[in-house]
């Protein structure tokens, strides 16, 4: 029966992975940029919320509210000032630019906040310890459920935005063909900037989730980045956005089941599942490889 509990915990963990994967998938789907600083941005968000807690005693969940617009602006500026330029010179330069950004963020965080490991879980009161006991072996913590619920809301929100709003349609059009989008009056740079802004904001929610359920320190970013990648790829790189959540759930389950076998195997199990999916004919849960084994050239942000 503990296996059932593991799977359930894994699914809930998948909610967290889904959140950090969502922003990554959005940026990749719209702009074909792999943001190597994505994990670090999430951690930055966590530190900003921590700052509010430290100086003004603001509870982390409340603290998210003022931090979100700040991060939205940061993301918008990041795209317009840094990433947009690097897009011009091919696909490698955004890699270098975001790698540089990642290093800068990590080290600025260390200089500002010290390398201590922190957690915000204890400052949310009963939320962290509350749990529903279903039976002797299965229990669901309120925090995990909250994070999973947030993940579903975020994905649904982004999906609705993309399929039902005019701005969302313009984003999908630009993702498919930025050149033609300009020809029909869409400001592609503005679209890209908004995509990055939203991705950064979602990453911030992910950062808070990390800070609440676990711990963080200035160099936590790259690990979260890898999990986000794995979730996106397991779900299918060219599939709809929900693939990232599905991939996150599979990753979460793989890790918790792996931990059952041996706690040291947890993260490795995730890597193995990732590699197996990558190599498999389908290439992802929600995608289909073309005959030659190459993925569909343009990952679409579809409905």
């Amino acid at each position, binding site marked *: 029966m503990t296996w059932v509990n593991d799977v359930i915990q894994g699914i809930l963990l998948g909610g967290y992975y889904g959140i950090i994967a969502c922003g990554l998938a959005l940026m990749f789907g719209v702009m074909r940029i792999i943001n190597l600083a994505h994990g670090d941005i999430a951690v930055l968000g966590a530190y900003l919320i921590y700052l509010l807690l430290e100086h003004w005693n603001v509870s982390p969940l409340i603290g998210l509210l003022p931090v979100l617009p700040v991060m939205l602006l940061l993301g918008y500026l990041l795209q317009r000032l840094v990433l947009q330029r690097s897009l011009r010179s091919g696909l490698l330069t955004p890699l270098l630019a975001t790698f540089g950004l990642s290093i800068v963020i990590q080290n600025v965080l260390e200089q500002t906040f010290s390398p201590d490991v922190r957690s915000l879980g204890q400052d949310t009161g009963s939320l962290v310890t509350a749990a529903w006991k279903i039976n002797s072996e299965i229990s669901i913590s309120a925090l995990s459920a909250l994070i999973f619920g947030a993940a579903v809301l975020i994905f649904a929100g982004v999906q609705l935005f993309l399929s039902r709003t*005019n701005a969302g*349609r*313009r984003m*999908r*059009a630009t993702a*498919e*063909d930025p*050149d*033609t*989008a*300009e*020809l*029909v*009056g*869409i*400001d*592609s740079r503005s679209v890209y900037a908004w995509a990055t802004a939203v991705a950064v904001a979602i990453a911030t929610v992910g950062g808070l989730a990390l800070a609440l359920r676990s711990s963080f320190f200035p160099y936590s970013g790259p690990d979260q980045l890898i999990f986000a990648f794995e979730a996106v790829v397991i779900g299918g790189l060219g599939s709809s956005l929900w693939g990232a959540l599905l991939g996150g759930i599979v990753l979460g389950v793989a890790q918790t089941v792996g931990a059952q076998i041996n706690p040291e195997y947890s993260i490795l199990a995730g890597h193995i599942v990732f590699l197996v999916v990558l190599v498999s004919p389908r290439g992802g849960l929600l995608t289909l490889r073309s005959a030659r084994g190459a993925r569909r050239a343009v990952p*679409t942000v*579809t409905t």
Partner: protein
Amino acid sequence: MNAARAEQSAEPQLVIEQLTLRHGLLEAVRGVSLTVREGETIALVGANGAGKTTLLRGIAGAHRASAGTITFDGVDVTKLPGHRRVGMGIALVPEGRRLFANLTVEENLSVAVQRRRPGRWTVDSVIEAFPMLQPLRAQRAATLSGGEQQATAIGRALISNPRLLLLDEVSLGLAPVAVEAVYSSLKSVIGEGSTVLLVDQDITRAATIADRIICMLEGRFVLEGARDELTREQITEAYFGLHRSAGVGA
């Protein structure tokens, strides 16, 4: 010619001076100059690789100019990005239609709405003008036939209520029946007083609606004249570069 057009036709609508457009190091359009009056219909012909598509893209803002200027309604738009030119009234129906494959017909039309100018064309009036699209509103553009895609593409350009409409190879890959339909709908658009710059492989067809014909070869204009003035022989020679007659605007 109605009174409004008579007023406007004093100043040329589009003035291109010594425009040069490059693909990397290769000059696709070399120092081209052109003046277009409002309401004119110009057919731009020439063999593949002559520079016609690049020129249209340059006017629409999809291709940055290496040299020269483009002036529209007296405003220098050379450095203006494409989406702003749409707002000024320039719209391009690109070669190969280039619809957004994963968006529906309705969505393809509505994404163009953001920068539309005031005028009679809306998503609904476009669908009215192309009735074949009515049952296809919710269908993904990738699943449409060539003719349906072309209609959608033209409609998408019309939504912005352009004053200068650029059409690149609208008959390419279409069955003759579809080409007929496209051209007859074009005639009604032109009847409204828009300026049209039209590129088509089918010289005969393009000539039927054009006031002026320009022939391009290797990035330059090699022949230019009113439709009635030019003979078939002249056009054919210019098209193939046989005589390299002193072209206008080279």
